[in-house]
């Protein structure tokens, strides 16, 4: 199964794993991105995520399709959570399955790197003093990706 979606509730990790698992596969890789309690030496208390929903859904589906073609994968599930998340919560889950582990590891890495690079989702960190700031992973000029 190939499916991707944005969710506003906690990610059902068991369902993500189950939907990527079939008896045709000998390897399943599950990647979870979770909310860390510090960033750039600054204590973080929570995060909130927002997205350009339609475009984010399109980009996630494109990435899954690209990974399927590039690595010969039939089973990929990607879920990204939006809204306010607590420390330790999973913000993203990627499950990739393949008959053999090599392709599964490679495809898993490809999916999460592409997601971080081009899916229009933003995160704002909440700090101990009550302030909030949008995270800018680039801090510099960004090139425009083209399809």
């Amino acid at each position, binding site marked *: 199964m190939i499916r991707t979606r944005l969710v506003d509730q906690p990610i059902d990790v068991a369902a993500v794993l189950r939907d990527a698992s079939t008896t045709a596969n000998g390897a399943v890789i599950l990647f979870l991105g979770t909310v860390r309690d510090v960033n750039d030496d600054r204590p973080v208390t929570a995060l909130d995520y927002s997205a350009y929903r339609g475009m984010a859904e399109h980009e996630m589906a494109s990435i899954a399709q690209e990974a399927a073609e590039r690595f010969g994968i039939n089973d990929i599930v990607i879920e990204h959570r939006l809204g306010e998340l607590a420390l330790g919560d999973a913000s993203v889950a990627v499950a990739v399955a393949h008959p053999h582990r090599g392709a599964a590891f490679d495809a898993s890495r490809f999916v999460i790197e592409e997601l*971080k690079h081009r899916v229009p989702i933003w995160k704002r960190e909440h700090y101990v003093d009550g302030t909030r700031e949008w995270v800018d992973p680039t801090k510099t000029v960004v090139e425009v990706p083209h399809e």
Partner: protein
Amino acid sequence: MTVTVLLFASYADTLGASALDLDVDVGATVEDVLGRIRRMPGADRLPATPLLAVNERYAALDRVLEAGDEVAVIPPVAGG
């Protein structure tokens, strides 16, 4: 003709709006729309080459717009 401009996250905060309608000339490009946005208060905080999209797909500056198009100015993405 009218196009809709969407702003998100830090750009929405900086420019004080998340969506606005702009009247532009027929044949206007994404670059023309960006030029209009750059005249808004706070726009000096936008980068030289922000990410741009038209109708939910990444687009280049020379993309010619049609009436009703949705142009998005996209801050550096931070998913994952």
